[in-house]
């Protein structure tokens, strides 16, 4: 998908939300189209993709048909849907995907199978204890996985660096970080909808 196609998908979801077609929170992606398009060029069909509650772009770039992604969002699963067929897993709990991804990577390695695990997480998730545990374990056991920190500087609306008083990122060749400026609010479209 192109950057404009990604942006159009989210505009469509926002319109559906504002039309009261989605009876659940939605977390819209935006501002990181170019970075993700570039990253997903390296994601192979046999790989696994783990993403956060903000996962629409990741699903689309994983190759999941747009109508499938939209159906899940319309069903109220914007922030926690998964697909075994596409090896795609998300969680609405910050950092929740991290040890699960490590387990999948360990399973791939144990079976000697091809493929690796891509884990996308936010900048606040990258400061949590579970992230440090997952990265250290992956490094120590040479697991086939990469962590991509999607740094918009915010956790919901709290500035991550101000909360900690410093910038935190565990050093590891498995951890990559890109920065971007959020386009949509943390949740929903920014338009009050009276359900």
């Amino acid at each position, binding site marked *: 998908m192109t950057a404009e196609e990604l942006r159009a998908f989210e505009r469509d979801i926002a319109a559906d939300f504002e039309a009261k077609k989605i009876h659940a929170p939605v977390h819209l992606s935006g501002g990181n189209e170019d970075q993700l398009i570039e990253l997903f060029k390296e994601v192979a069909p046999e790989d696994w993709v783990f993403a956060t509650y903000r996962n629409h772009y990741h699903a689309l770039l994983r190759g999941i048909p747009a109508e499938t992604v939209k159906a899940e969002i319309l069903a109220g*699963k914007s922030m926690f849907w*998964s697909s*075994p067929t596409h090896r795609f897993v998300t969680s609405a709990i910050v950092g929740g995907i991290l*040890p699960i991804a490590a*387990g999948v990577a*360990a399973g791939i390695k*144990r079976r000697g199978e091809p493929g690796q695990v891509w884990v996308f997480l936010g900048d606040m998730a990258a400061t949590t204890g579970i992230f440090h545990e997952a990265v250290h*374990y992956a490094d120590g056991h040479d697991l086939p996985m990469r962590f991509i920190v999607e740094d918009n500087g915010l956790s919901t609306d709290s500035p991550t660096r101000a909360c900690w008083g410093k910038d935190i990122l565990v050093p590891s060749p498995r951890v990559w970080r890109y920065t971007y400026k959020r386009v949509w609010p943390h949740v929903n479209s920014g338009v009050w909808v009276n359900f």
Partner: protein
Amino acid sequence: MTYKEALTLAMTMLAEDPRTLFVGQTVVYGGQTMFPTLRGVPMEKRIEMPVAEDFQMGFCTGLALKGFIPVSIYPRWDFLILAANQLVNHLDKLPLMGDFRPRVIIRTGVGPRHPLDAGPQHTQDHTAAFRRMLHTVEVLELRSADEVLPSYALALACPRSVLVVEHLELYR
């Protein structure tokens, strides 16, 4: 047959299934009450974990997504509650959120009060509370030696994850 002998047989039975792995702290190196019951488990099926309880539960969920049936060992309830996020929010909820059906057998125990009382942080029993919190994970409690083998056989055959609660006082 004693409770401990039945547990040893049950673990050996589980180990015979090619899908199982035994994951936890002191499963390879010993040092906790449940360790001797793994006597019949081959070393290549054991994964020694750091002290990272929530990570361990998520790690086992991930192994389960790859088709393994991990036996995730927490020697006491007091330690297992540190994995509550991955147990309650993830392993238990994944079947409600999509088509994944991870199968993990969680093994824990209620610490003994006799002849030594291990105190308030090593003797808690949270079984009733977690029965209320878990919607897809089955909870089994082993109150006698007779219940051990049938319960673990049931856990292995169950299409869902199963939490098995042992009573360490019965190990004597």
